[in-house]
């Protein structure tokens, strides 16, 4: 079956059309405070032209950056959260989900898709931090598990782009078990010798770090991304001291041996494609 046929059957989104910002809108870089138009920033992979600050973006932007001609097939696009614990804090969980869906236009904190990167197949799972802090509940675990199944079935490499505060409290132990579920599935992917690229972006913490994010054949991160198991605030409270500068940042993780490399978002696509080509099996 040709790849194009599959695309036609699936849901094709043209992110370019949907997301284009009006020309006149100005955005201030949170790092160097310089202004630039949203259009210019969008054209430069949401990286500041002045200081190379990487703006926080979501699945739509990453799919646009990675996939050839904005063509991709979204997988399991309609999975939504249940309310297994009937969880209520200041708001009932289903209401929180509903409000997040309305606010973001997303179904949950991750989207999965298959497309081509410089002509090569890739399955990408990408998180959206603006959906309840990119938190991992059953939907995220299930979508990642199914994306891995898809990779296994079609023998395509997998990439997970993490941006998450960790497991979602409102699903209790069910959220915790998504760590087990995704890691167990990755063991199968590893046994099948299918490459898995983990890209950690700002921020990647908690149960996401302590499961699939750290299990890449290639662990990569964007510059200055916060990556850790415990959050900086919790660590500070535990040790009762200020944290050293650069603690838990991507550069810190490279120095301590937990990342293969840091990648500038503007070079992400080509570097990834190069790696995939290098790993091609005869």
């Amino acid at each position: 079956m040709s790849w194009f046929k599959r695309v036609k059957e699936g849901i094709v989104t043209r992110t370019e059309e949907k997301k284009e910002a009006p020309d006149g809108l100005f955005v201030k870089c949170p790092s160097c405070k310089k202004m630039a138009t949203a259009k210019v920033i969008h054209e430069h992979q949401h990286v500041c032209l002045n200081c190379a600050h990487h703006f926080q973006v979501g699945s739509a932007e990453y799919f646009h950056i990675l996939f050839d001609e904005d063509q991709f097939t979204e997988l399991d696009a309609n999975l939504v959260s249940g309310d297994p614990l009937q969880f209520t804090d200041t708001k009932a969980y289903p209401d929180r989900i509903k409000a997040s869906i309305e606010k973001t236009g997303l179904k949950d904190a991750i989207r999965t898709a298959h497309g081509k990167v410089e002509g090569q197949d890739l399955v990408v799972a990408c998180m959206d931090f603006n959906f309840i802090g990119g938190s991992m509940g059953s939907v995220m675990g299930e979508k990642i598990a199914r994306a891995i199944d898809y990779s296994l079935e079609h023998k395509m490499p997998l990439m997970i782009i993490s941006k998450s505060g960790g497991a979602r409290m409102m699903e209790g132990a069910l959220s915790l078990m998504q760590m087990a579920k995704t890691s167990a599935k990755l063991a199968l992917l590893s046994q099948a010798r299918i490459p898995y690229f983990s890209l950690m972006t700002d921020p990647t913490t908690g149960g996401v770090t302590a499961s699939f994010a750290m299990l890449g054949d290639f662990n990569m991160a964007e510059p200055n991304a916060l990556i850790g198991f415990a959050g900086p605030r919790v660590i500070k409270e535990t040790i009762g001291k200020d944290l050293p500068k650069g603690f838990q940042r991507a550069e810190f993780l490279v120095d301590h041996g937990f990342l293969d490399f840091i990648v500038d978002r503007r070079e992400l696509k080509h570097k990834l494609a190069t790696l995939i080509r290098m790993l091609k099996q005869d």
Partner: protein
Amino acid sequence: MELELDFEKPVVELKKKLEELKHTEATSKVDLSAAIREMEAKLLELQQQVYGNLTRWQRVQLSRHPERPYALDFIQAICDDFIELFGDRTIADDKAMVGGFGRIGNETIMFIGQQKGRDTKSRKLRNFGMANPEGYRKALRLMKMAEKFNKPIVTLIDTPGAFPGLEAEERGQGEAIARNLLEMSVLKVPVICIVIGEGASGGALGIGIGDKVYMLENTWYSVISPESCSSILWRSWDHKEKAAEALKLTAQDNLDLKLIDGIIEEPLGGAHKDPEAVFKAVKQVIQKDLKALKAKEADVRIEKRIKKFSSMGVVA
């Protein structure tokens, strides 16, 4: 003198009254047997009422009871022989994570568990049962050795969480736990995991991927402690009872959610009231399950294990 929890007060008070009554009978030589019998019946009724209707928060309290048996207590009581093994072969020996080969009859088993301390000094030594990355790597080293020598593995989970420290982050706490999740899911030998106290989040799960996962009756297992959940959602630690209810973190809850395979009963009032009975129950479960698990081929066990964890979750 036994340590009482707040909700146990009525039981303790009635017990005291009963003792007094018995003492009066012994010293005054007046026949009070009818009154004593009546009070004993009342005590039993009260105990059943208090311990039979424990709230989720009360079970959390019992799971942390300072007299509760800890991992090494279980191992020493269950095994005919036990040789403790130390170190991750890279950086250190983590005293919060213990392990070694134990023997029950003809069966050699690799035991691994988080260990808490009982007094100020040993609590500090054991870091309150909060392992560092080297603890998880020590556990993995021992599990791989068990696999090499074709010996089954039993893990005893009891932790308030993986340690959130500076060095823990430097040495890759997240990576260490993640690695264990992946490796445990494809271990060729049978793996049984038992939550014997606290099952807090990734720190617990880091030794928690098994063919069979059990919880003792008065333990908890969830993504976050009730206190931390309360402080995040209600911005104060005062709502821990409400948080415990919301998280549905008890053994029964986790069984209902199909996240564990069974519950091991505890004596009325908790494991510390009759540790021998709990040791016996745990030993029986281990022996029975190992027999069944060993009858299967390794790849069948692994497939079933992965399938079990893959089916966890609720989506609409």
